[in-house]
């Protein structure tokens, strides 16, 4: 204990007080006339057994209702049955016939040879056209 704390302790003890007999009697008399307040303990009400049965059954019923509702939502929607006989017949598409005026090539040689002959004919025809127009 340091010097200050020691001095404060000593000086506090130097304050001379006494609870007088008169004050003692006054306090005792006052206390006799006082009733201490009491905290009310929380009242725990016992529920009857029927309550628990009823609440359990209600819970089960609610769970079942939920299951039924969920499952009923999952059922596929009804597919409309279409009778073939009721449908109108698809109209027949008539494709126009085209006269291509084609001539079938007479292949007398192997393909490579035919190609060379055709190219030669094409070249001769080209030269003939140039001569005709005077180029």
């Amino acid at each position, binding site marked *: 204990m340091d010097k200050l704390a020691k*001095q404060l302790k000593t000086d506090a003890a130097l304050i001379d007080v006494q*609870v007088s007999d008169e004050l003692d009697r006054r306090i005792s008399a006052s*206390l006799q006339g006082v009733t*201490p307040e009491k905290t009310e303990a929380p009242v725990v009400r016992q529920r009857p057994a029927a309550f628990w049965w009823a609440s359990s059954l209600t819970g089960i019923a609610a769970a079942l209702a939920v299951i039924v509702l969920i499952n009923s939502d999952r059922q596929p929607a009804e597919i409309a049955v279409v009778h073939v006989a009721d449908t109108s017949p698809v109209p027949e598409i008539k494709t126009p016939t085209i006269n291509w005026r084609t001539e079938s090539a007479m292949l007398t040689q192997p393909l490579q040879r035919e190609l060379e002959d055709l190219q030669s004919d094409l070249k001769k025809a080209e030269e003939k056209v140039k001569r005709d127009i005077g180029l």
Partner: protein
Amino acid sequence: MTNELQLINAAKAGSADAFADLVKHYRTRLLRFLLTRCASYADAEDALQDTMIAAYRYLHSYDPRWRFSTWLYRIAIRNAQKHRSENVVELGDLSDEESDPLLHCIAASETENLWVSARRVLNDDVFAATWLRYAEDMSIKDISKALDRSDSWTKVNLLRARKTLDTEMNRRNNGSEAYG
């Protein structure tokens, strides 16, 4: 301490005698403290009586986690404040020995009692904190609880009070040496 708990339980059950036994050790200490905070000896006695009645009536609200003395001092501090606000007396102005109950209860001495100095230089709450710490040996937590203050407030103000009182003590000692 077990005995104290037994007395508390008996008093809670409505035994005024058990309560009287319970507070027997605290009455003088409380009166000494109240004397430093009241304007007259009669006020201090009234505050003590009110404290006892309130403590008995509201004993059910006492939390056994705290020291019983802490709870009693908390009630006493409130009652002292109530008595002071009714009489409106500034304790710092009570320098006359005839009217100051504290001076009346201190034997004549060459040096001023440090608590008289403390009451002059410290404000009410800091004085109370200092009293609870050094006259009652209360812990910081108990003081904070009794004064309804934070622990940090108590620590800081006790430190400041120490510095102030240290200066007062040195001044007092120097003064007595100069006169001696």
